């Protein structure tokens, strides 16, 4: 197991250290593959997407900056975007890349909360998703895991466009609040325990 943290690995990857890339792979391959598989439902294509994403990191590690979030966030957003492109038959320049990768620099400051998020566990995210009203969770999952636009979500669910927009926004707000609560609870729980 490589002792370097993610950012150190990324710096080494920027210097074209292939062992560092493999170390990053060892750390996140199950998550990355799980995500690609969840979106695509096809192991073969999902592996292609994962390889593609790691190669993208290999090429672009030097251009990584903190506004993209943690290294894990960056990797997973590449996997997600590539998988959606595959799913929707989009080739060439990724449409989704434009979104999730360029959204962040618009934000004035690095997202401090995202650092807290590095500690968050899968089980907490699943619990938070379960805590959402069903219709909000469904709308969010259609957007994230199927790559539907708000209009397509409205059509799929047979709801007005305005309603689809609200479900996405309110759902994410609620999810954010639930996750923050989880973090606060686990932090206070940890200090109680010692």
């Amino acid at each position, binding site marked *: 197991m490589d002792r370097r943290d993610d950012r150190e690995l990324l710096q080494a990857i920027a210097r074209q250290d292939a062992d560092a890339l493999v170390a990053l792979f060892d750390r996140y391959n*199950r998550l990355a593959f799980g995500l690609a598989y969840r979106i695509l439902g096809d192991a073969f294509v999902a592996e292609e997407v*994962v390889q593609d994403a790691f190669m993208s990191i290999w090429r672009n590690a030097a251009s990584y900056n903190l506004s993209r979030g943690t290294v894990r966030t960056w990797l997973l957003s590449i996997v997600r975007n590539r998988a959606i492109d595959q799913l929707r038959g989009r080739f060439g320049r990724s449409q989704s890349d434009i*979104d999730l990768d360029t959204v962040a620099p618009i934000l004035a400051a690095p997202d401090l909360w995202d650092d807290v998020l590095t500690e968050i566990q899968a089980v907490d995210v699943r619990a938070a998703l379960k805590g959402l009203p069903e219709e909000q969770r469904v709308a969010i999952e259609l957007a994230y895991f199927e*790559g*539907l636009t708000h209009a397509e979500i409205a059509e799929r669910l047979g709801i007005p466009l305005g309603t689809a927009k609200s479900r996405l926004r309110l759902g994410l707000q609620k999810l954010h609040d639930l996750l923050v609560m989880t973090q606060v609870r686990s932090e206070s729980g940890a200090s109680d325990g010692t």
Partner: protein
Amino acid sequence: MPATVPDQDHAHYRELLGAYALAALPAEERTALERHLATCPTCRLELRSLLAAARALPLSVDERIPSPSLRERIRSAALEERERAAHAAEPESPPSTSRIAVLHERRSLVPWLAAAVLLLFSVAMLVWNLQLRQEIESIALKPAAAPQAHGKVIYLREWNIVLITVEDLPPLQPGQVYQVWLIEGNQPVSAGVFTQPDGRFAVAADIADYSAIAITIEQGPLGSPAPTSEPIVMAELPRQSGTS
């Protein structure tokens, strides 16, 4: 698709933030929203939270083990790409057989060096011209068999170019050439031939591998496989490393 909306419609844009954070906005609306975000701190602040939540979503999936070969596939793809990039970055290599380029008469040193580089290397090498002065080592060619002959060897260490200036070499008989030798131990290697008794020449060679350079008179037009006469001039080459 929704109609265009006035820029100042903050409420409208605010409603789009969730879709934006989830990459669920069509391009037109996305561009319009980004313009709004640039001027609206309230929306930027909200977007931060929404984006943080969106970034947590991939953690909700079940982890899954890819096939064992994926790891090595990625490693070899990375190494292959690195290799390719390294080759692309390399300057065009000099001809594999050493050869001499004759440089026409010029008084000043720098244009002469530039001409040598131009002759032997691709245009890309010229970018480095500015650095030339720092890379030069100049060694006197000492007269050997021909007492009046003299010259100079200039070694461009970084680029494996040897520049040779000679003056007053003994005249050639018809059919003869001057031949340049790079010598390591007792093994002279031909670096090429020329015919002018005064002139400047560039030799593409890694002289770090050699301890001496010498010029002899040989039968033309191609010279000899090994020297057949005493050197007319020669010079010891500086050692880069290792034994002398």
